[in-house]
């Protein structure tokens, strides 16, 4: 038997690690990887709660999260490549054009 509460705790810990990664790193690629970690932590919580209720709905939702993550990775990485072609850097602190 897998302890559901501990799986949720691991999911929360991984989500926190993803948030920390977004906040302390300035490379757009690493920020993207941290976002993937957060999405996966949410997926883990979905599947764990799906198991806790013996229903399938949480797993279905995890699939939709994966589809959104795939779309986000494709477009986001294309944006990173486009920005790198123009600025030769993926440092997000240099992309401050819209900042007042």
């Amino acid at each position, binding site marked *: *038997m*897998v*302890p*559901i*509460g*501990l*799986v*949720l*705790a*691991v*999911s*929360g*810990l*991984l989500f*926190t*690690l*993803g*948030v*920390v990664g977004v*906040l*302390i*790193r*300035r*490379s757009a*690629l*690493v920020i*993207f*990887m941290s976002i*993937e*970690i957060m999405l*996966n932590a949410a*997926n*883990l919580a979905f*599947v*764990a709660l799906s*198991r*806790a209720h*013996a229903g*399938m709905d949480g*797993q*279905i939702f995890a*699939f*939709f999260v*994966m589809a*959104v993550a*795939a779309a*986000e*990775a*494709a*477009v986001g*990485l*294309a*944006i*990173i*490549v*486009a920005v790198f072609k*123009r600025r030769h*850097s993926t*440092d997000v602190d*240099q992309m401050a054009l819209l900042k007042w």
Partner: protein
Amino acid sequence: MTQALFYLTAFVAVMTAAVVILHRNPVVESLALALHLCTIAFFFVLLSAPFAAIIQIILYAGAIMVLFLFVVMLLDPGGEGKAGKVGRGQLYATILGAFALLAALFPILVGYEPSLPPTPAGYGGVESIGTLLFTDYLFPFEAASILLLAAMIGALYLAKREID
């Protein structure tokens, strides 16, 4: 047995996530992220969601990680250098916020111990998920296909545009 596997997987998952956010070499970070995604797939197996685990490995550890590694190789993998550091104040604020978030989450999550109901036959398999996707979740399924089409067109447009 399952308990020991769970603790081992949790340890590897947290360690690889820490490598992703702390290491300075993007190639190492990508590979650590691939391993992290595989441990999540292992969690899915432990939670009796085999189809989700397979899709996790094929889609995440396969397709998305290839995209990431491709971009890392395409761009300069030299790391961020000095300019990539955040300020000291932001670092401390982040650590404080992370601890606050964990302190808020953990007591609730760890205390949640439901009695697990037995799973029906074919739980988490291809057949039950396919049936659900094409009956109850037909509209979100079609919406996801439109989203993926839009993402494909957007990525193609971004990649093909000439720089002026």
